[in-house]
């Protein structure tokens, strides 16, 4: 049997090395080390990817992990004094705190579980971006924005998550389940950080906290009894990590302050927070703002102004880190988009988030704005009203609509303030809560601006993906509130009621999960048949690749081939799915960006449905090409093969004459044809592929 997960084992060993070094040599709490290590890995690989040295950098990180970890362990175990057993115990006690053990236990358990179940990608945006980007990174060893893919547009979404996926499967074959393991590892690192500062004797607090964290993504994303598989720990979407890492950055800071450790370790976490999705820039600024306020307002030293300059400096660095990440990524993708447009692809189409923010604030203040914004003033007002209405009435989490969630989270923060032992701690907790609320208002304002000025009118009117954007923030807020609570309880005079409250919350999570998440839709209960369509795709693609591999007239290596896709009736999903499955073979966008022969149909590309203009049947992705145009489109694409995944009567009537078998084989199933100047030649016999 193939040892399919050895790459994960090596990656985890390297990760352990990095965390051991951070804990033993940098004096960072063991519960925080995994988050710092993962964030650093992601950011180093992002920078290396942009510089074009992704694989060497990844190898260097592995060497660093083994080297630094080995050195840290060796030197700590060979310090003079004490017996070897005592030194082992001392090192183990530092490395295996409740937070660190929670992290490793969850990480290893899920790695084993996913290695057995091997879930696959299954959702639209996983094929159209998240999963495909991860696969490009792994199969081509480049940052996905520069990978070879059939998209005519330039990918601009941040790549922090894809880099983690890359790191975890550097030495093995790409698999979606390994990507899930990587992403869950990041979530678990944030959960572990929540437990920072707790000792083993606090297990009555630590265990329920860990359980609450595990349930948190369900708590804030499920809003009704689930009927279909609910993708929480089996998704490559960035929304849940965005929220958890936003919370994780604040939690990391609170832990750093409580347990000590170098300030620089916070910076990769803040940077990663800004490098998950484009909208997480706002979340990372909120996290940096909370850190800065906590640093400046609540000094450990007395008097308050002692060391103020240093604290202000650190606060500035905390702000600059996500800002720099955002700006550098923005510049990088803008340059790529311009180059892409020059090469005949699409350029950038939406307004920059900073321009939108500036003009939005101007509108609020009644100042004049540019024509683009003036034209959309009505949409801005409407979006604000819709968002308010949604906040009050649309059920977004298990416990209710946004207003209920905010009251609940406020309750947790107030409880943390009540449990705090000193007046200063009470004030600190309440100030942090107030800042989270202010940032929440600002985040909502940014969403209003996005719906009004960045999204299409239809998306704005429907508040498309409202849940996804909001639960990111709630998740971060929840983790922060939990941490505020957890760090007060062990020292509190009301320690027992505090622990009982956390335990009650954990039990409530278990109850709500049981009530809302049907067993067969959960991460443990889903059936493999969930992936039937994806398995069919895999089989189809494997058969097609086999045919191409055996083609004696093939030019170049199999993985260098380009395929033109025909899938009659496709709504875009098939193109994305098959593009993903065929990688590293590239599926061409399959059609001109704009139809030369216009029949009033604007969609001219993206694989799908082709036919003669006179046979146009109203299909939204219909490519109305004459026979000559279709042949020319295929030739100009540079594809060596034409893959007819689904044929139909219109396609046969339109182009049968171009095919050596007049599409007889394609009538029976997916078929591969070799492209030539004369037409398309059947290879591999009838029913090939």
């Amino acid at each position, binding site marked *: 049997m193939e040892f399919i997960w050895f790459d994960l084992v090596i990656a985890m060993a390297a990760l352990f090395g990095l965390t051991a070094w951070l804990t033993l040599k940098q004096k960072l709490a063991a519960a925080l080390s995994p988050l710092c290590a993962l964030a650093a890995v992601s950011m180093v690989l992002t920078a290396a990817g942009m510089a074009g040295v992704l694989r060497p950098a990844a190898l260097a990180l592995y060497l660093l992990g083994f080297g630094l970890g080995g050195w840290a362990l060796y030197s700590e175990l060979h310090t003079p004094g004490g017996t070897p057993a005592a030194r082992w115990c001392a090192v183990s006690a530092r490395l295996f705190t409740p937070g660190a053990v929670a992290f490793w236990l969850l990480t290893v358990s899920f790695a084993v579980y996913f290695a057995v179940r091997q879930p696959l990608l299954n959702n639209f945006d996983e094929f159209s971006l998240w999963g495909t980007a991860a696969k490009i990174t792994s199969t081509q060893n480049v940052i996905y924005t520069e990978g070879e893919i059939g998209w005519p547009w330039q990918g601009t979404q941040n790549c922090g998550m894809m880099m983690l996926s890359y790191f975890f499967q550097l030495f093995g074959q790409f698999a979606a389940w390994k990507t899930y393991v990587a992403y869950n590892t990041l979530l678990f690192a944030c959960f572990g950080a929540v437990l920072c500062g707790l000792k083993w004797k606090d297990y009555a607090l630590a265990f329920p906290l860990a359980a609450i964290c595990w349930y948190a993504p369900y708590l804030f994303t499920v809003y009704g009894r689930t009927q279909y598989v609910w993708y929480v720990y089996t998704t490559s979407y960035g929304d849940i990590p965005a929220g958890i890492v936003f919370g994780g950055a604040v939690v990391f800071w609170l832990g750093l302050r409580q347990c000590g450790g170098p300030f620089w370790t916070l910076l990769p976490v803040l940077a990663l927070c800004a490098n998950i999705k484009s909208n997480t820039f706002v979340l990372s600024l909120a996290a940096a703002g909370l850190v800065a306020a906590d640093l400046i307002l609540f000094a450990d030293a007395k008097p308050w102004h002692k060391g103020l300059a240093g604290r202000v400096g650190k606060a500035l660095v905390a702000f600059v880190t996500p800002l720099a990440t955002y700006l550098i990524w923005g510049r990088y993708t803008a340059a790529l988009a311009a180059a892409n447009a020059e090469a005949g692809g699409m350029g950038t189409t939406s307004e920059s988030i900073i321009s939108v923010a500036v003009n939005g604030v101007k509108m609020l203040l009644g100042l004049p704005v540019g024509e683009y914004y003036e034209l959309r003033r009505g949409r801005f007002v409407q979006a604000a009203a819709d968002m308010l209405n949604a906040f009050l009435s649309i059920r977004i989490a298990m416990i209710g609509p946004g207003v209920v969630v905010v009251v609940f989270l406020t309750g947790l923060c107030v409880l943390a303030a009540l449990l705090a032992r000193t007046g200063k701690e009470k004030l600190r907790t309440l100030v942090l809560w107030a800042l989270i609320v202010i940032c929440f208002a600002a985040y909502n304002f940014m969403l209003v601006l996005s719906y009004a000025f960045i999204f299409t009118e239809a998306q704005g009117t429907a508040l498309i993906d409202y849940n996804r954007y909001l639960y990111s923030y709630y998740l971060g807020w929840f983790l922060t509130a939990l941490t505020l609570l957890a760090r007060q309880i062990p020292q509190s005079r009301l320690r*027992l009621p505090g*622990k009982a409250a956390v335990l009650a919350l954990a039990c409530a999570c278990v109850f709500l999960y049981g009530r809302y998440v049907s067993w067969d839709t959960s991460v443990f209960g889903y059936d493999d048949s969930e992936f039937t369509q994806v398995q069919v795709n895999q*089989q189809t693609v494997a058969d097609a690749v086999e045919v191409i591999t055996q083609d004696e007239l093939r030019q170049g290596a199999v993985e260098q081939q380009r395929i033109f896709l025909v899938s009659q009736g496709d709504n875009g999903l098939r193109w994305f799915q098959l593009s993903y499955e065929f990688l590293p073979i590239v599926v061409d966008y399959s059609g001109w960006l704009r139809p030369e022969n216009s029949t009033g149909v604007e969609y001219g590309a993206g694989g799908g449905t082709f036919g003669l203009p006179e046979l146009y049947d109203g299909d939204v992705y219909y490519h109305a090409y004459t026979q000559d145009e279709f042949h020319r489109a295929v030739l100009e694409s540079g594809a060596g093969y034409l893959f007819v995944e689904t044929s139909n009567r219109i396609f046969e009537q339109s182009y049968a004459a171009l095919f050596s078998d007049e599409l007889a084989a394609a009538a029976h199933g997916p078929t591969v044809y070799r492209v030539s100047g004369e037409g398309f030649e059947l290879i591999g016999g009838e029913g090939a592929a």
Partner: protein
Amino acid sequence: MKIFAKRPRALIPLVCYGLAAVVWFLLCTGQLALDGVARLQGRMPQVHAPLAEFELYALEATGEDSLVSTTPDPQLYWYNPDGRVVRSVQLQITFPRIPGELALYYTEQPGEAFGRDRKVYPIQQADDSWLFVLPRAQVYSLRIDPSSEIITMNDVQIQFNTGYRWWQYYLPGWQQAFDLLLFPGLAASALNILAEALRCRKAQKKG
């Protein structure tokens, strides 16, 4: 060991997890023993069930052991004729392509509707058969959904109470494994809080 003498509350999690393991072992052994008795008494026969014993819905028999589904929701119904124990159903079918979802539903009483609360997914075996393991319940009727496609099914073989070995009684499912990790931990936390509360109360009384 010193830690337990110094801090007896450190023992609580060990006791809780130990107790959970013992309870799990006893429950599984009990079920194994009951099934053993039922087997000895002939109430749990390992039998091949011919297709003639099943009511077909959205399925057409094309031979003695061949079926074809007429909709994407084909179903086979079976009513327990003699109150026999059904612990597992092993399904062997040759499909021409990926068959989609296979599932089994069961009811425990007459008049009960089939629903997702009494639904079982199969585990594909090394010999390519599908094994449905039913929880400890008195089965009144079964509904087997052999596919979620319009598809032909050849060499259909259905067997009751085969393919499930004694040691498999002790293997928890994934959710059960998670529960075995979660609930003893929560119980230990609750007991710890209770113990601390009692200690505080004692201290207050003394004080």
